[in-house]
């Protein structure tokens, strides 16, 4: 906003900045011609200090938005700042939020939901850029109930037609492990607890990959798996000192939550490792249990491809499942078939024999929970046309008699 040096009318150089009432004016002292009124950019004096003034602050744009939208956008921006996300994420998240709020299904929802909507937009943006942010983190930041967050997230995904790529486990391992207090020396953390971050991350990644190959990850919450894998890899890096430390104590010292499913994931991981160990020639002499196998995790991971192939019958498992009849309770039928097979292949994964391989299947198929078997529709059922006569006697069974009504009325009066 350079003021011209000369008056265009008279050519004089005597230019004065004067205020006409409240308005700044640049006036020629000689002829009185007004050269400029007000500042060309903003009324903020910050402009003189060359600080960029946002468009939203200098125009009436802010007043055009509803207060709800403004508040929501501010919330989204705050979230991005707290999570230390790149600025491009902030813009994307805000644009999603605007779009969502205009959508009829979100326009009139409760304020609580609108706040969650902001969190969902941030979450979606992170996922789309493969930034490993979990729902748990967002929920804790928003003090939100996970079920409510889930429903808002799913409807957002549906209404805006967003494509959200799956959570990358590798990135999650990195971020999750960064929150563990294992890498810097602190007063309350003993020396044997410390670990080198890169080594730990690398080994945890390998264990998580192993879990993924052996069906422990599909359909399960990712964080407990990473926590269990971190514990195992931490133990295996210095087994002598660390075998006595329990999972719970480890998490407490590391300053990390121990999610309830993590114990089960740990058990499953150990079972897989034990099976693999049974195929490693120099380990067969030891009778390993779930404590001692930890010492050999390094070796097991190194040879995991070979060990997995031998410890689990992949092809056989699938073939026999094909042959199984396609009816009845599916979980137990193939397991029964497996038991009937020769070569002492254990039917259930529970028995950890070093015998033959077991099929590589998700745990829900290895240990099927006893479920109420829904009977296949019987012949008489399928003969129903919907137009059968309805007998009065049958209907009258459902009606109360007069004495019963009196008794019921009396009873209700007491309630």
């Amino acid at each position, binding site marked *: 906003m350079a003021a011209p040096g000369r008056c265009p009318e008279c050519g004089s150089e005597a230019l004065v900045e004067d205020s006409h009432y409240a308005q700044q004016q640049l006036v020629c002292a000689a002829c009185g011609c007004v050269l400029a009124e007000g500042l060309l950019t903003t009324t903020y004096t910050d402009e003189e200090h060359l600080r960029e003034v946002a468009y939203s602050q200098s125009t009436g744009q802010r007043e055009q938005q509803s207060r709800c939208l403004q508040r929501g956008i501010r919330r989204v921006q705050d979230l991005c700042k707290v999570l230390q996300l790149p600025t491009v994420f902030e813009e994307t998240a805000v644009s999603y939020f605007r779009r969502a709020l205009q959508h009829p299904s979100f326009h009139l929802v409760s304020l609580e939901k609108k706040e969650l909507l902001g969190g969902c937009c941030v979450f979606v943006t992170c996922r789309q850029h493969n930034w490993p942010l979990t729902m748990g983190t967002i929920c804790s930041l928003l003090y939100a109930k996970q079920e409510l967050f*889930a429903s808002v997230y*799913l409807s957002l995904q549906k209404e805006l037609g967003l494509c959200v790529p799956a959570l990358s486990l590798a990135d999650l391992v990195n971020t999750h492990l960064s929150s563990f207090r294992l890498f810097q020396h602190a007063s309350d953390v003993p020396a044997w607890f410390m670990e080198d971050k890169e080594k730990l991350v690398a080994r945890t990644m390998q264990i998580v990959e192993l879990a*993924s190959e052996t069906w422990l*990850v599909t359909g*399960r919450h990712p964080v407990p798996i990473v926590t269990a894998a971190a514990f195992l890899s931490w133990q295996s890096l210095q087994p002598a000192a660390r075998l006595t430390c329990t999972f719970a104590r480890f998490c407490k010292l590391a300053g990390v939550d121990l999610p309830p499913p993590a114990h089960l994931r740990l058990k499953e991981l150990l079972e897989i490792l034990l099976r693999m160990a049974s195929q490693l020639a120099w380990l067969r002499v030891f009778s390993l249990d779930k404590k001692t196998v930890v010492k050999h995790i390094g070796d097991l991971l190194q040879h995991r491809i070979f060990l997995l192939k031998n410890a689990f019958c992949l092809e056989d498992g699938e073939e026999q499942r094909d042959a199984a009849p*396609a009816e009845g309770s599916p979980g137990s039928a193939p397991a029964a078939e497996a038991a009937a097979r020769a070569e002492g292949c254990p039917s259930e994964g529970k028995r950890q024999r070093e015998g033959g391989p077991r099929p590589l299947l*998700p745990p829900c198929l290895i240990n099927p929970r006893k479920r109420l078997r829904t009977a296949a529709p019987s012949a008489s*059922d399928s003969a129903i046309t919907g137009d059968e006569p309805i007998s009065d006697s049958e209907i009258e069974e*459902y009606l109360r008699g007069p004495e019963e009504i009196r008794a019921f009325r009396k009873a209700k009066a007491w309630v």
Partner: protein
Amino acid sequence: SSFKDDISTSPQLFTPMSPYDAYLPIQTAEDVLLGSQFNQPKELSTDFSSVDLSFLPDITQDNKEQNPPEDGHEMQKEPDGDGSIPRNEDSGIFMDESSLSYPDGTQPSPEASGVCPPLTPMTPMTPVTPASESSGIVPQLQNIVSTVNLACKLDLKNIALHARNAEYNPKRFAAVIMRIREPRTTALIFSSGKMVCTGAKSEEQSRLAARKYARVVQKLGFPAKFLDFKIQNMVGSCDVRFPIRLEGLVLTHQQFSSYEPELFPGLIYRMVKPRIVLLIFVSGKVVLTGAKERSEIYEAFENIYPILKGFKKAS
């Protein structure tokens, strides 16, 4: 007959020959004109589950093949005038079968089922594919949700008082929850006269159950009718018998799939044609929902099976 006595004591005015037992869809004139043979396949497609070839012409069908009639509401008046119908208070009056050839429904004879229109040339239906092409697995229906309009205002307190199988907590929910044993179902009955029936395992069972509920309401003294019976949702399930890599499936079918293990262990697949939502689990179990007709469930499963099979070998 007690049936008539109950009706006559009710204060509301309505035709004593309550055509409740006869199925009375509100049909558009268009439907009636087109004749039932076009609508017929919809119901008959239910028979494909058992690979029943009796839909071919020249094979006699007995009554059980016939489904709700397509004729219009003229039927309502039939019981009054037509003396040929066996008047038995225990009988459901079969008004349907005749509608096949007589769109205006002048012959309400239960035995008129022999007239079966040729179906195959008429409408495109989900074909029964030979086993070598199809999966060989048939989804089993688990739940049917249907609605019907009883077309009269109901006193819910009264119903809850007089019916054994009813519960009514107005503070919790503004409807009576009624249950019957056979077919094992639950109904939500609203004071407007609308009713929702859930829990049946087939369309016919749902209709039979809905009729029974309506009959209970009728016996309680309300002039209940049976209008606009409609299947709103059908849920089926089956098992492909091999584990599925859901992470892989969500990558290759991103535009249809939603897999959030943090939220739900299964993958939610929104199929476009037919418009069905499938829940696919790592164990290989598949749940299909959102269907208005049985054929949609079968078609959706036949569509998803080759996709899932593609992930079997990859594991």
